[in-house]
């Protein structure tokens, strides 16, 4: 039996995905396309928020949506019915999207006429936090019925997002959810995160969310023009 050797590797495990994500970000930047990665638990309101965002922003930006689902096309059909091109990415059991899957999804959109693409990631607060999709900004939704303790259970997700939408605020009076406690728990992990309170049902806060998103798209464009 030959001798056992210790071979240095010193590599990051997710390097390939990170490189693909960085390439995608560069490519989209050159074309002036803003990619938003939207994450949440199942049922927090991702599709409803996208439909509200379409209502608010479709006259300002030409939009497209990538819908990731383990195995259904329900969400893409709703978005397409709102008049926006939607691509369904079936992850085939995968719990998250990675940059390679996003690239394939984008290939199915006519990017020459699109300025804003929203990715509806797989409903899950664990895995999507670890895989860079190539998005310019990461957004997450936490809905009131899920409880104000979620930052304690899924700290990484709250850490990687640029904006948190606290959705279903119309349920606040029916629960013991504390908005103040939630804000404290989130800001401990991510002091600079934007927090916007919304209800996709009543429309509360949707104007603030749309303004935040429109401003980020503008900033991204300016960065591109000044390079």
């Amino acid at each position: 039996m030959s001798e056992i050797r210790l071979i240095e590797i010193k590599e990051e495990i997710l390097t390939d995905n990170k490189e693909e994500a960085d390439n995608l970000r560069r490519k989209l930047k050159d074309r002036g396309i803003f990619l938003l990665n939207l994450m949440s638990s199942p049922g927090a309101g991702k599709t409803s928020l996208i439909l509200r965002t379409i209502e608010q922003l479709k006259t300002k930006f030409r939009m497209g949506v990538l819908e990731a689902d383990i195995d259904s096309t329900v969400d893409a059909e709703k978005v397409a019915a709102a008049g926006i091109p939607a691509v369904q990415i079936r992850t085939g059991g995968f719990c998250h999207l990675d940059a390679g899957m996003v690239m394939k999804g984008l290939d199915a959109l006519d990017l020459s006429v699109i300025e804003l693409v929203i990715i509806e990631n797989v409903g899950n607060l664990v895995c999507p936090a670890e895989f860079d999709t190539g998005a310019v900004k990461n957004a997450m939704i936490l809905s009131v019925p899920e409880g104000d303790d979620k930052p304690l259970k899924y700290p990484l997700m709250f850490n990687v997002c640029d904006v948190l939408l606290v959705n279903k605020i119309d349920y606040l009076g029916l629960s013991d959810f504390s908005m103040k406690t939630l804000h404290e728990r989130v800001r401990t992990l991510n002091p600079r995160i934007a927090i916007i309170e919304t209800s996709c049902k009543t429309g509360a806060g949707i104007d603030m969310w749309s303004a935040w998103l429109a401003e980020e798209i503008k900033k991204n464009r300016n960065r591109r023009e000044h390079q």
Partner: protein
Amino acid sequence: MHELPVMQSILTIVLKHAVMHNVKKVHAINLLVGKLSDLEAEWMQRYFDYLSAGTMAAGARLNIEWAPAVLSCEVCQTRVEINKVNLDGITCPACAKNKFQLVSGKEYHIKNMEAE
């Protein structure tokens, strides 16, 4: 939950280095994984065994060093290790503020491998 793609990535990197170093068999792989990753050692090994069957890395043992989840105070840079018990209402032990940056806990690193 996402052990499979992570293990596939580890296997790809390990096999690349195995070819570079003329390795016949990989016995062990030493990893550094952040505690916030939510990966489970037992499932990592099971998925790795499944993916590596028939390769030079078949049967290799995964030795996992868990990197602690550590926050650094934004005001005074004091570091504090967090876990799911002490995270609620955590403040800086030095200046009592509660604004932090995450400085450790997201690691996903292959250190080295033992091979012949």
